[in-house]
């Protein structure tokens, strides 16, 4: 009797192909269920998008008021990649039942985080490059990486894989931004006085971030260590 290529209607009409489950090789150790449901993930995406969008706008405002040419040009690329991050997060929202028009929905987790973002944008004068960059590259971007990575770990690994993929790309690029920013800051802070300025700014912005609960407003319950 020849091998059946397709199953028939009765039990003796099965094919002879050996069963092979997607769960066998390679072993899929992921488990269903994560910390966030659809609504909570959507809220997080809106919060993340708010932070990325405002960072992009703030960096845009600073380009003209920063005197160091390589910093201006370096920020050009970071602005674009930060805008892409916001865009990708926005594109996820309609997939999370937020409506087709939700792609531009940025939302601060609370008023305190919105105020924090405005405080971050305060430095304006050309002699404040250290304060400008330290707020973003020493504090906010590292905080976002920490929260994004926690989200990637805690969300449902299979059901919410599209969010994980988006965050994975953003984290990879954000780490490059942080490395660039820290290299620039190390160069700008080449005296005790300038190093002290950087430290003070980090302390101030870190304190404000903790006060508002971070990008999701839940820093206390999520708590990892801040930079």
């Amino acid at each position, binding site marked *: 009797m020849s091998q059946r290529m397709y199953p028939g209607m009765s039990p003796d009409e099965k094919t002879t192909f050996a069963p092979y489950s997607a769960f066998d090789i390679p072993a899929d150790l992921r488990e269903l269920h994560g910390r966030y449901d659809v609504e909570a993930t959507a809220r997080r995406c809106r919060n993340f998008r708010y932070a990325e969008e405002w960072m992009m*706008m*703030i960096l*845009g405002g600073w*380009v003209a008021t920063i005197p160091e040419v390589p910093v*201006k040009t370096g*920020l050009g*690329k970071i602005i*674009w990649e930060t*805008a892409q991050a916001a865009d990708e997060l926005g594109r996820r929202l309609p997939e999370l039942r937020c409506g087709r028009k939700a792609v531009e929905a940025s939302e601060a987790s609370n008023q305190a985080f919105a105020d924090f973002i405005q405080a971050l944008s305060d430095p304006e004068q050309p002699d404040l490059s250290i304060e400008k960059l330290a707020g973003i590259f020493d504090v906010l971007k590292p905080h976002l990486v920490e929260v994004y990575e926690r989200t990637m770990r805690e969300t449902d690994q299979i059901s919410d894989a599209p969010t994980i993929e988006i965050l994975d790309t953003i984290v990879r690029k954000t780490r490059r931004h942080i490395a660039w920013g820290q290299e620039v800051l190390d160069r700008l802070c080449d005296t005790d006085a300038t190093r002290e300025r950087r430290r003070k700014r980090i302390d101030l912005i870190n304190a404000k971030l903790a006060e508002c609960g971070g990008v999701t407003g839940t820093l206390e319950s999520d708590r990892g260590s801040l930079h």
Partner: protein
Amino acid sequence: MKRFIHHSELARDSRFVRQDNAQSTVLAQMPDDVETVVNIFDQFTPMIEESVRGTAAQALFDEYGPGFALMVLNEPLDPDSPISKTRLLLRMHGIFVGELQALEGAARSLWDFPDAPWEFKMNMARQCWDEGRHVQIFEKLLTHLGGEVGMFPESTFLFECACSEDPAMRVAGVNRGLEGLACDVFRDMIRYAEKTGDETMRQAVDYVLADEITHVRFGSEWVKAFTEGDPDHFKRTQDFRREVDKQFSFGGARSDRPDAAIPIAWEDRVEAGFSEEELRDLAELSVGGPSKKTLIEAARILRERHQARKAEQSKETGQ
């Protein structure tokens, strides 16, 4: 951080020197009359002398006097000319600072217009990266040609022209007016690089030109979007773009004249979304102002007067 900054607030490191933007404005408004052009430049002599002091342009001032810009702007770049290298570096430096201001302009649009549509912000963010790369490219080309950042004074006229508080006006001025001018200048630079066999310059500027066409297209699309359903607003943006085009025609140096130093890059502009009607309009408005003959005659007189003044001064010093 406040919204909308003045062009004098552009931050620069210690290599840069500023040039008074009044010169550029005057150049764009001069009549076709030798005596008037000479008188205007004579009045500006102290300001021009001050702005070039200690820069590579001082040698041009010493040789040609206050009208050196007329010589530099109105003659096509000729590799065989004795001052071709200085002129090339002057143009390259002008492009470098122009790209820097274009980066600053696109970036400020993100902060100045927080409520603009998301796609507009995405386009401006992308332009930030492109302009940032252009700054890097022209800094490298400047070095490649033996120049350096800060060797000539920087006019912030580009940023001044571009910083309207109305987003439609801003994209009309920056993305259609100034980036359109960039298309003309870069096409001319590519021709020059081909003539001199400089493949490094040719290829780099060719890539930049491709980006600029995209930026003009952003402008073409956003002017339409921002002024949709408001013909008066659309007309104002067109008038503003024409004003910017007029200012940056440098008295016909960039025009459709057969002897223009920088010809209009007609095909590139069509690809970027300019209509034939707009291009005919640009060709017409850019030839206005003093003729090339007028400017060259004015430059000759200014040079003679300058040399005479120098001779007089050295005579007095000698006595």
